[in-house]
């Protein structure tokens, strides 16, 4: 992909503040019209990477190529990039109109064209009626739309969005999550969208890059990241309720390996080479079937807590040997303390090396084939 002419190519971008390394050589490619979600916990270096791409961090090294042009040593004003900041960063002393018009003023466009373009983008983002107002008179949702309009109005080749929905309320967040993909596709820009909400990553990302402690640990399609997180750290972050991780030691079996977990003997269709190593079995809560009566192939457990989440209920279970397990079920949950029986879907289980925390590649290949 290094020969890619359009879009954005980031090569080995590293940011260090003195001896503290915030970002260890990140490399990404984003095609025009594509949205790459940069996902990670707070402090992972997402904003640092975004700033490095925008040219706002003098400590950044590495290469940034925008539409075939190396802009690594260009100032932020020469990179043809639109940025939506998490805190909106509107110009408080200018009305919304002037805020949005700023990138067009910088290019010294004729006033009539500026007016036409500001009004077009404002209509698209439904803020035409507030163009004359100062930022302090705008609601959070309007501020956020104004900031997005400012980032989009110049039709940049690259669009960087730093968690733009973080500071707006749930309803607006939902609205924007619906609207954004259409806006981004329409803009045709190569977009990077930063978030720490895996639902946003799933709904907005054509691809997801997971950033943890300054390392890009996985870049993949959202479903793939969900189905086969590359490491335990990714697995814990990506998904809500989080993945169950059960310690186990796989033994070689007839068709793959067998593990003893949750009081069950499970056959995993993976390469027998993983046998004998300390491992963690990863199980999504929705991949654990729950029964109210004993079933063949199901193990007993006690229900501890149930958390209803509109269409499904997340339950915390405890197996007789003390292992806590999260499962999700449809409909009303049994009362706390009730005995239930669980049966994991072994075909969708993941196997992680307990030492390195990485998804076992040989196991992963099987999962990919199954998915």
């Amino acid at each position, binding site marked *: 992909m290094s020969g890619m002419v359009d879009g954005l190519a980031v090569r080995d971008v590293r940011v260090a503040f003195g001896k503290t390394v915030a970002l260890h050589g990140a490399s990404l490619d984003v095609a025009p019209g594509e949205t790459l979600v940069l996902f990670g916990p707070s402090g992972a270096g997402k904003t640092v990477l975004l700033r490095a791409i*925008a040219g706002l961090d003098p400590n950044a090294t590495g290469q940034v190529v925008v539409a075939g042009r190396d802009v690594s040593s260009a100032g*932020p*004003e020469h990179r043809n990039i639109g940025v939506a*900041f998490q805190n909106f*960063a509107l*110009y*408080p002393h200018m009305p919304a109109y002037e805020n949005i018009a700023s990138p067009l003023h*910088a290019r010294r466009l004729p006033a009539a064209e500026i007016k036409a373009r500001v009004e077009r983008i404002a209509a698209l983002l439904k803020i035409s009626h507030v163009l004359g107002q100062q930022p*302090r008179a705008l609601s959070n949702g309007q501020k956020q739309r104004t900031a997005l309009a*400012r980032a989009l109005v110049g039709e940049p080749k690259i669009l960087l969005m730093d968690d733009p929905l973080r500071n707006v309320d749930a309803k607006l967040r939902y609205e924007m999550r619906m609207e954004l993909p259409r806006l981004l596709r329409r803009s045709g820009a190569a977009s990077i969208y930063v978030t720490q909400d895996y639902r946003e990553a799933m709904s907005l990302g054509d691809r997801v890059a997971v950033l943890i402690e300054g390392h890009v640990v996985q870049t993949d399609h959202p479903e793939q990241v969900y189905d086969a997180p590359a490491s335990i750290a990714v697995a814990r972050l990506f998904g809500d309720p989080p993945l169950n991780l059960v310690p186990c030691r796989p033994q070689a079996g007839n068709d793959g390996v067998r593990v003893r977990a949750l009081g069950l003997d499970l056959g995993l269709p993976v390469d027998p080479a993983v046998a004998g190593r300390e491992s963690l079995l990863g199980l999504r809560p929705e991949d654990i079937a729950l029964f109210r009566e004993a079933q063949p192939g199901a193990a007993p457990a006690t229900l501890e807590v149930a958390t209803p989440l509109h269409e499904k209920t997340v339950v915390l279970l405890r197996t007789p040997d003390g292992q806590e397990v999260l499962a999700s079920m449809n409909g009303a949950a049994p009362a706390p303390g009730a005995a239930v029986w669980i049966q994991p879907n072994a075909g969708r289980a993941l196997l992680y090396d307990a030492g390195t925390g990485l998804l076992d590649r040989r196991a992963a290949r099987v999962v990919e084939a199954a998915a």
Partner: protein
Amino acid sequence: MSDQVFRVLRGVALLLVVVFFLFPIAWILLMSFETNEQILQIPPTLAVHPTLANYVALLSGKLQTASGTLDVTFLGNLWNSVLLSVCSVALALLLGVPAAYAFARFRFRGGENIAFTLLSFRFAPPLLVLLPLLLYFQDLGLANTYVGLIWVYQLICLPLILWIVRGYFEDASPDIEYAYRVDGHSWWSGFTKIALPLAAPGIASAGLLSFIFAWNNFVFALVLASADKQPVTVGALAFVTASGIQYGIIAAAIVLSILPTLALALYAQRWLVEGLSLGAVKG
């Protein structure tokens, strides 16, 4: 019941404070319209027969006293005060605002130490440095020049402007300037169109404060300037004459010398309104 008592007591306390602080000013205003004889009358009388003689003497430059006519250089002194204060504040703004921006936005080796050293100029009593300064200035030919005085006045103005304005720059999120850069504007344009307007209330209040401090300065001008360069604060000493202290004239001079700073403060008030940046940045 106790609520009402509290309110009355608070009113009384406030009244006492106001009387305490405003009484001298009111007294001076009254004195400025009286002759020296009326002022020194015992018992003092409130039956005022206002006279403009003091103001006439100040503005015409001729003061009639028992021992003859004195030349009064008050208008010259007033002009000196205006010149020294305006130039000092202008220079301090020119130097201090960019420095404040640098201290607020960039971390560099020794930065904090330099900023603190500049602030420490304000802890040291002026008398400590005045004598050596006079000797240096005489050698350099700066004694009794406007340039020399404006230079020394930087000890008063520069730290004040630097530290107040720095806080205002720090309060504005750097993201706002970053956003402006990303829009395609140069660094300089971001500084003048974003950083400076956002810090404007701070720059106005720091400028006003340092103007007042420069205007009220006495000791630097007393030692480093001779009669033709002296501001009003030093010039008022001339009214302690051989034929007595000219209280009426002094009072009138005070009233006249308060007017410029008062006018400036009233004018700058609208710039001092804070909260310009409220609601621009979230989080």
